[in-house]
C-alpha cells in the first residue's frame, strides 16, 4: 500500500501563487475558498542583509487526524494510502474539523454548506497522475510521491535532506514535509 506524501522545497519556491490558482481552478472553488495559500516570511533582517522564504500551505494529510477523529458524521475520512478527504454528501458543515485542524487547511463552502479541503487530487492520483498543484509548479518546489517506496524522490528527500514538519509538537505527524532554506 502506498503512503502518499508531499515534500515542499522552500529553497525553490518563489511565491508565485500558481499552485493556489491551479488548485482553485481544478477544484472549481468559489472565489473566497483557498485550499493551499502561499505565505511569505520576511524579508527578515535589516536592509540589505535580508532573508525571505515562501511557505506553500495545504492539508498536511496527517497520520494522527484530529479532523477525522472529531467529525461527528463520518464524512472526514483517511484512506489507507494516507489521503485525508471529505465525503461531501455526509458533511453537515459543523466546522468541528475546521476548528480542530492546526493548519487552517479546511474551509467552509458557503454555497454548499459543507467543509472542503485538499485531497491530494486523488481523482488524478488514482489514475497514476500527480496533484494539480504539483504539476503546475514551474519551480518543481512541490514533490509528490509514495513514502513507502524507497526509490521515490519524496523518500529520498525526507530521509536525505533536513525535512521538517509544521507544528511538529502537536503530534499530528503530517505527511507534508518542508525543506527549509531558512537563514541562508
Amino acid at each position: 500500500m502506498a503512503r502518499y506524501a508531499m515534500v515542499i522545497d522552500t529553497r525553490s519556491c518563489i511565491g508565485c501563487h500558481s499552485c493556489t490558482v491551479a488548485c482553485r481552478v481544478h477544484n472549481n472553488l468559489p472565489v473566497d475558498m483557498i485550499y493551499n495559500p502561499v505565505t511569505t516570511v520576511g524579508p527578515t533582517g535589516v536592509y540589505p542583509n535580508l532573508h525571505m522564504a515562501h511557505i506553500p500551505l495545504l492539508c498536511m494529510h496527517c497520520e494522527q487526524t484530529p479532523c477525522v477523529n472529531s467529525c461527528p458524521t463520518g464524512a472526514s475520512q483517511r484512506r489507507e494510502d494516507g489521503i485525508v478527504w471529505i465525503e461531501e454528501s455526509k458533511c453537515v458543515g459543523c466546522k468541528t474539523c475546521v476548528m480542530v485542524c492546526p493548519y487552517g487547511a479546511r474551509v467552509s463552502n458557503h454555497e454548499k454548506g459543507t467543509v472542503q479541503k485538499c485531497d491530494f487530487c486523488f481523482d488524478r492520483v488514482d489514475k497514476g497522475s500527480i496533484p494539480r498543484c504539483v504539476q503546475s509548479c514551474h519551480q518543481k518546489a512541490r514533490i509528490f510521491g509514495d513514502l513507502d517506496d524507497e526509490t521515490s524522490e519524496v523518500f529520498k528527500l525526507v530521509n536525505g535532506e533536513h525535512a521538517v514538519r509544521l507544528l511538529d509538537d502537536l503530534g499530528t505527524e503530517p505527511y507534508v514535509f518542508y525543506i527549509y532554506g531558512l537563514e541562508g
Partner: protein
Amino acid sequence: MNRNVDLEQEGIEIKKSCCYFCHENCGVLAYVKDGKVIAIEGDPEFPTNAGGLCCRGNIALKHIDHPARINYPQKRVGKKGEGKWETISWDQALSEIAAKLTQIKDESGAEAVATAGGTARTDDWARRRFMNLFGSPNGFHNAHLCWMPTFMIETAICGWSPFDLDMGNSRVIILWGQNPGASGMPAMHHLTELQRKGLKIVVIDPRYTETAAKADLWLPLRPGSDCALALAMLHVIIYEGLADDAFIAENCVGYEELATHVADFSPEWAAPLTWLTEEQIREVATIYATNKPGNIQWGTTLDQQGRTAGGAIHARALLRAVTGNLDRIGSDLLSGPSLDSITEEEMECNEYLTDEQKAKQIGSDRFKLMTWPGYSKIAENTRKVWGKAPTAEWMCEAHPPSVFNAILTGKPYSVRALLVSATNPVNSYGNSKVVLEALRKVEFMVTCDYWMTPTAALSDYVLPIAGALERPTMTTVYGCADFILASQRAIQPMYERRNDYNFWKDLGIQLGQKEMWPWETVEDAYHYKLEPCGYGLDTYDEFVEFYRFHFPEREYNKSQRQGFATPSGKIELYSSVLKDLGYSPLPEYVGPVENEIDHPELAKEYPLVLSTGNGFMPFHHSEQFQIKDLRYLRHEPYFQINPVTAAEYSIKEDDWVWIETQRGRMKQKADLTQAVAPRVIITQRGWWFPEREVVEPDLGGCLESNTNVLTSTRDEDCDPMSGTWANRGLLCKIYKVTATDEKGGN
C-alpha cells in the same frame, strides 16, 4: 483542468496550444470537445515551461468566456466615454472605419493615422504591413520600455543583440534589473536548476525581489544609478587587469578610446552615486570577469530609466566585449535573425513606405536610434552580414509621448486617428494624465481588445479580439531570434471575436490592399513563413502537431566566420554607428532623471526616490484585474516602503498614501518592508478598477492608483538616443490619504 471534467470521454481532441497572458507563451495542452475547450494543462513536452503554468496561465478558461469580455463589434452612440454602444457587424465596422481613415488620409495625409500597441501579444508584422501599405510611419508600442533600446544599442555595437544566453555552459549570470521570479517563470526554473549545478547568480536590483532572495550575490543599488555602476565595472575590468586582451585584440575596435573614457569612473566615484560600497562594485566586476564564461541577462529596467538609459545600456553592453563573454561557448550568443524561415521583418513590407513618409515619423528628428534614421543604418549593417534586418515593428517606431503630444498640440502636425490594439495606454504609457487627455481629444479612435478598458471606453469603435486558445502563436522573440516555437489554436474564436491579423488584413482590403494580403487565415501566413524551412508540410497545424519547434543548431564563434555586423566588422567599443547618428560613441555618464545631486531644489520638495513599473504576480501589466481568482490574491494596490521611512511619515501598514511627483499624484496602500532601502518608494504598476463603471469621468479609476501618473515623458527626461521615458530613478513625496482628500488621480 477541472476535476469534474472527464478527460477520458469520447470525442476529445488534445490541441497543442499556448498560454497568451504574457509573452513567454508557455506550452498548453487544450482538451477540446465539440468546439469547446473543456480543460487545459501545461504541456510537459514544451521546452520552456515543461508542464508548469503560472497563476495567469491557469485561469485561461475563466478568461475565455468571462462575462466582461467584448464579443461583438461595438460602435459608440453616445458621447465619447459615456458608455453607450450599439452592436454592429464586422462588415459595417470595417467599412465605416475604412471610410473615416480614407477621409483623414485625403485631408491630412496618411501620417495623421497612428497606431498604439502594447506588449508582444499580437501579430505585429501584420499591423506594420497595414501601416506601411497605408502610408503612415506612425506605429508605436511600449517598445521603448521593453528591451528595444537595449536591442538597438547592442546591435549598433556588435551587429545583433546577444540575447541568446548559453546558460547551460555558463558559470555566472548577472540578472540586471530583472526579476524572473515574478515575471518569467520558465527562466526562473532553469536558473534554479543551473544554480544547483553551480551557476552563480548575481542580481542587480534596488529591491529585494523574489529572485534577489535566491541570488548568490545581490547588489542593492540606488534606483536609476545603473549607468554609474556599469561604467565603474568597466573601469575595474579595464584598470585592474581583468579584461580579456586576446578577445579584444581579435574582435574589438576602439579599446584605447574606451579605456581613456572610463579612466575617471572608478568605484570610488561610483560608490556614492549607486549607494554601493567600492568593494561591492569591485566584487561584481571581478565575479563577472573571472568566472568565465558568463552571461548578462537583459532586463527591461535599464530601458525604463529615461535620460540615463542609453548610457547605462551602452556601458552594460560593453562589459561583455571587454571580458570576452560574447559569441563564445557559455556566453551571450548572437543568434541573429532566422535564416531558415521568412522573418517578421520580411512580412512587414517596409519597402512600400516611401522615404518621404519615413521622414515624417514623429520623434525621428530627435530620437534617432529607434526611428527610421537609426534603424535604416543598423538594418543596412545587419543585412550585409546576416542578409536580414531586425523587425521594424518594435525596433523602428514613432516616439509615443510625441504622438500623444501631437494629438494635443497639432505639432509637428496633427494626428487625427489612433488605432489601438492590445494596449490600454492610460495605464501603460508614461505620464498618464497627458495620455488620457490625448485619448479624450483624438478625433477618431478604434480599439481592438478583450475588455472595455478605459482606453476602449473612449473609442469610437471597439472590436472583439480572439485571445488565448483562440489563436495560433509563433514565438520568435519579436522576430529577432533564429528559433521558432509554434502553437496552434485550440478552437476558433468564440462569438464574433477575430484575430488582430484579420482586423489588419480586412481593414487593408477595405482600403484597396487586397492583392497584398494573400493569406486568408493567420495560419496560412505562418505556413508561408515556415515553408523555406523545408519540412514539406501542407499546413501550419501539421507543423505544430508533428514538430512544434524549429531550433537551428547552435553555432559558437559565428563572428570568426562572418565578422560582426558593424561598419568595421568588429565589435565597436567606440561606436561609429552612434557617432554617425550624432550621439556619443562611448557611454556617457548621466545621473538618474531626478536626483538630489543634480536637482537639489527639486529634492527638497520631493525627497524620496521613486521606482515604478516592476511586475508582480498575479497580474501582467494592466491586465487580469477582472479575473476574480487572481484578484482575490491581491485585490488592492500596494507600494513598498522601508519601515524607517514609514515611521518618519507616521505611515502604518495598510495605510492609503498619496505618492506625488511633479506630474501628479496617485494612491496605493503601504507595505512596510525591509525589501527596499530607506528613502526609496517602489510602486505597483498597472492598477485600474474594472469592477467600477468604466465611463467618464472616472473611467474605472484609471488614474487613482496608476503609477504612470508619476512617470515623466518630457523630452529632456527621455533618452536622447532611443527616446525612452522615465519610469525609474524619479523623486517623489508621500503623505497619508485623509477622509476629505481621497479622490483619485490628480
